């Protein structure tokens, strides 16, 4: 079943098509949610509510862009909503401004790290760092978009991104040298 056929079947309320669409994207979207939310149950809650919105907003999908990108965007928004509920996002942007948190050594890690290790590194970041890094580096958001989505300034977004990268590089170095 092609993607347009799958979407059409879901629009008709076909349970099998809905299950197929869920199976097709649930794994990817759960990883996405886990990148934003530390606790697995919070990530699954975001996944659940995100898919509920996907099926609810499916008639509005105009098939002009990538369906996966459309689903991913809904999931990101849902993960951010869940993040605001679970973690005080505004506090984390005020922290970790000390120079010692900046990267001191360049990262030498390669792609030898497994996904779970990368995920653990991401989840070890402060919430603000993690969120901005996710949005910028992995989702492709621009700083103005991040600022609008998180309610911060562009400068804060850039700063958070820089600090997140520095912290990741340092921790990657530690992981690789261990």
């Amino acid at each position, binding site marked *: 079943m092609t993607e347009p056929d799958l979407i059409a079947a879901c629009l008709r309320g076909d349970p099998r098509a809905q299950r197929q669409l869920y199976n097709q994207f649930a*794994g990817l979207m759960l990883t996405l949610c886990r990148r934003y939310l530390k606790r697995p149950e919070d990530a699954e809650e975001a996944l*659940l509510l995100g898919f509920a919105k996907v099926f609810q907003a499916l008639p509005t999908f105009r098939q002009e862009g990538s369906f996966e990108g459309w689903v991913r965007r809904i999931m990101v928004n849902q993960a951010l909503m869940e993040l605001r509920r679970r973690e005080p996002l505004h506090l984390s942007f005020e922290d970790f401004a000390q120079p010692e948190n900046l990267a001191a050594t360049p990262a030498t890690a390669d792609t030898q*790290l497994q996904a779970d290790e990368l995920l653990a590194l991401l989840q070890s970041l402060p919430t603000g760092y993690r969120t901005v890094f996710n949005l910028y580096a992995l989702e492709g958001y621009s700083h103005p978009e991040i600022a609008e989505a998180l309610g911060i300034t562009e400068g804060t977004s850039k700063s958070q991104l820089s600090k997140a990268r520095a912290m990741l590089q340092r921790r990657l170095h530690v992981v690789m040298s261990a």
Partner: protein
Amino acid sequence: MASDNLDDLFRQQLGQHATPPSPELARRLAELAEAERLDALFRTGLGSHASQPRRAVWERLEDEHLRPQPRRRRPAVAWWQLSAAAVLLLTLLAGGLWRGGYWQPAGGLASQPTGTESAGAGRSTPAPVAAGVTRNPQPATNSLAQDTTKQGLAQAAISPSKKNQEIISRQATGTPASSSSNPIATTTRPRRAATVPQAAGSSQPKPRPLDAAAGQLATTGRRNSPASQPTPTPPTVPAPAERPSLPVAAMTSAPEIIEVEVRRGNAPASPATVSAPVVAAVEPAPARRPRLRLGSLLRQADHLVHGEPVSLAEATGLAETVTVQARFGGRTLSKTIQL
């Protein structure tokens, strides 16, 4: 200098010249490259990674969002409905059983002999006088019997041959064998019986309380299975003249036979032959006390919730209908009571 020469001069001096980047620029470029490398590391490592969600996520999505079923909300509603139905049903049952004399204490039954329990029919030593038994064919009791037929009260005299499981009657003049097999002699509701005067059958050798005597003689609770004690000798105690208004047809004064049968269901009673002139009040003697069954109660509550007809008889284990048939003097009166 000619213009062509000027152009050649700059081309020769600057065209092949390499300016080394400043240290600051070099650092920034390195950071960008490193940042891009870091981003690419996470993008490639996590971009296509899939985590398997638990099965419960899909089930919740399906149940709560895709196909919300009212069945899931119904138990909360049904709980209150069931509770209300159970309370109502129990209230009705309690009221019905109370009115029917199910919980009447054994001492309140008129058919009980004084100081003895109701199941005295099986005893080898019969009591001197059974409360529900009329042994004396006095004229006063004849009128009492007529009153009884008018009121439709249960009264029966049973020949020993009528001992099937449905018909429960008892004759006061029956043989001891028959009385032992059929311990209950009188039936009616004790509440109603308590309002009636004393029966002639209360004429016993020793005086008895007014409530437990003839007034309640013919009216007995269904469950308390009082027994009138058969006496091998015909009754000879005359009824007092001041008790002519005995409402229950427990007394027969004339040699006529008044026969009352109470049976479950609405099947007609088979004719009975009674040789003795005395008739005793009769009650259907259940083989055992009908018990309230929880399963039946819940089933009826479920019927009530779903709007289906509720059967009180099924819930209580009683017969749905009880037929009372009285025969005397060639006349037959029958009444079917539906529970």
